[in-house]
């Protein structure tokens, strides 16, 4: 069972919510009976040792698990109260409203401009695309570095710049939630810190769920922390409480580096 704390949700209720969620890859169960909720306008960190199901859980929120042929989902995932796995729900529509940033920067082999414009274009954006591209790059803190060379290939950027470009690309679709799967782990310390600062700024406008291996990072940027172990949600609550006084032994053991 999950050790849960009181989570304040305000009048609108949680943005994301799971009830009894289990995910299987073929025979293997990656997520076990997870129930938790993400309050609006917060950053929730998912922590836990490798293979604990953090990324799998994250990929339920935009139905990316659908792309894997053997995956199966049981239980409920709700986005603003709508069951994301209801038959009437189009996964493409879900992904337009719930954005995702991946571990490895994965820009398209195109120009910087085309990378940011791709999402709006495929979603039938009508309006000032140039302005949208600029605004997205500004929000991702990249405009100052690339504003004068939007036609350059995105592959020429440094790893950290590529990752911020991927964030800008995600923001250009104007999602309500941004999922991040260890977005800074493949970057050098300085680039990693810039991405971290960016996440901190973005939480004013977006709800963010972030998977991280970095305890300090989780402590610095998140409002709530969920500790997963072997597919189960062990403990979920305000980051301060989890970090200063975890109730579960395994949470404490993981955070103090005794396993992981």
């Amino acid at each position: 069972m999950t050790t849960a704390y009181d989570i304040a949700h305000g009048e609108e209720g949680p943005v994301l919510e799971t009830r009894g969620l289990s995910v299987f890859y073929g025979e293997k169960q990656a997520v076990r009976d997870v129930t938790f909720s993400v309050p609006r306008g917060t950053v929730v960190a998912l922590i836990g040792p490798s293979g604990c199901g953090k990324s799998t859980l994250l990929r339920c929120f935009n139905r990316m698990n659908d792309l894997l042929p053997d995956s199966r989902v049981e239980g409920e995932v709700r986005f603003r109260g709508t069951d994301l796995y209801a038959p009437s729900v189009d996964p493409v529509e879900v992904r337009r409203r719930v954005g995702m940033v991946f571990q490895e920067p994965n820009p398209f082999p195109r120009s910087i401009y085309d990378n940011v414009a791709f999402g709006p274009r495929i979603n039938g954006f009508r309006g000032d695309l140039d302005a949208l591209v600029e605004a997205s790059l500004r929000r991702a803190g990249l405009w100052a570095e690339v504003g004068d060379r939007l036609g350059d290939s995105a592959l020429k950027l440094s790893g950290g710049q590529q990752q911020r470009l991927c964030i800008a690309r995600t923001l250009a679709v104007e999602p309500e939630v941004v999922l991040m799967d260890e977005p800074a782990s493949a970057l050098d310390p300085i680039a990693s810190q810039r991405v971290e600062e960016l996440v901190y700024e973005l939480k004013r406008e977006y709800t963010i769920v972030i998977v991280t291996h970095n305890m300090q990072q989780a402590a610095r940027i998140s409002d709530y922390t969920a500790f997963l172990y072997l597919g189960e949600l062990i403990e979920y609550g305000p980051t301060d409480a989890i970090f200063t006084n975890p109730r579960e032994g395994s949470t404490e053991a993981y955070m103090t580096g005794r396993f992981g």
Partner: protein
Amino acid sequence: MSEHRRRRRRALGGAFAAVCAASTLLGLLALGLLIGDVLLDGASQLDTDFLTRYASRVPEQAGVRAALAGSAWVVGLTALVSFPISVGAAVWLEEYAPDRWTTRALRTNVANLAGVPSIVYGILGLAVFVRALGLGHSVLSGALTLALLVMPILVLTTQEAIRAVPSTLREAAYALGATRWQVVSRQVLPAAAPGILTGTILALSRAVGETAPLILVGAVGFVAFSPSGPLDSFTVLPVQIFGWITRPQPEFRALAAAGIIVLLTLLLLANSAAILLRDRHSARNAR
């Protein structure tokens, strides 16, 4: 380890490298002899007139114009038919097909088809296109037969090119709310295009060199005109060469050698184009 054993190991390694080098040299030597022999025989016949003259019973007045035009017609039509079908099939197999045993059987059989001897395609072409569909001994029959021949190869190389597109690219597009069609048409196919084009050039260059299936569907060794439509009768370069070689007069042997030089030049040009395309692509992808 003893000094003796160490020396023995080194000697073994050296011997292996020598055998490998000798094999390579043997292959190169054979190719060199072939080209040298052909050049000796054919170079004297090779001039612009040779390219612009039609076939003739008089060796001094014979040329490959009809064969060149026929090859161009046949390969052009082959490309037109095989390219869209093959790319479509490869896209379906890689991006859409469910992973069932039927799909796996289909994949395996495409690979098997690529290994079927070309003469079998010739017999099929003769039975289906020439006879059953009544297309006769025409450019179209030849092109459709060659299309059957190259399609399995094209499907395989296109599948490989599609598989080489990193899955992170697909994920990125899906995560932005792209539909499957948008992912395929806007990211996967453009990223795979250089590989697909390289494979197409190589497959078509194989079609250019094919002789046996075209003899079966009725390409003839003596044609005194270029085809002007898909239903005209035709010849192609390798069949023309074959026709000349089977004649007893030594002059025609020289003509055949000159024809081989033309054919080899075309094939080498096509292969160089394929290599250039591939290198340019990998240079662009390297940061």
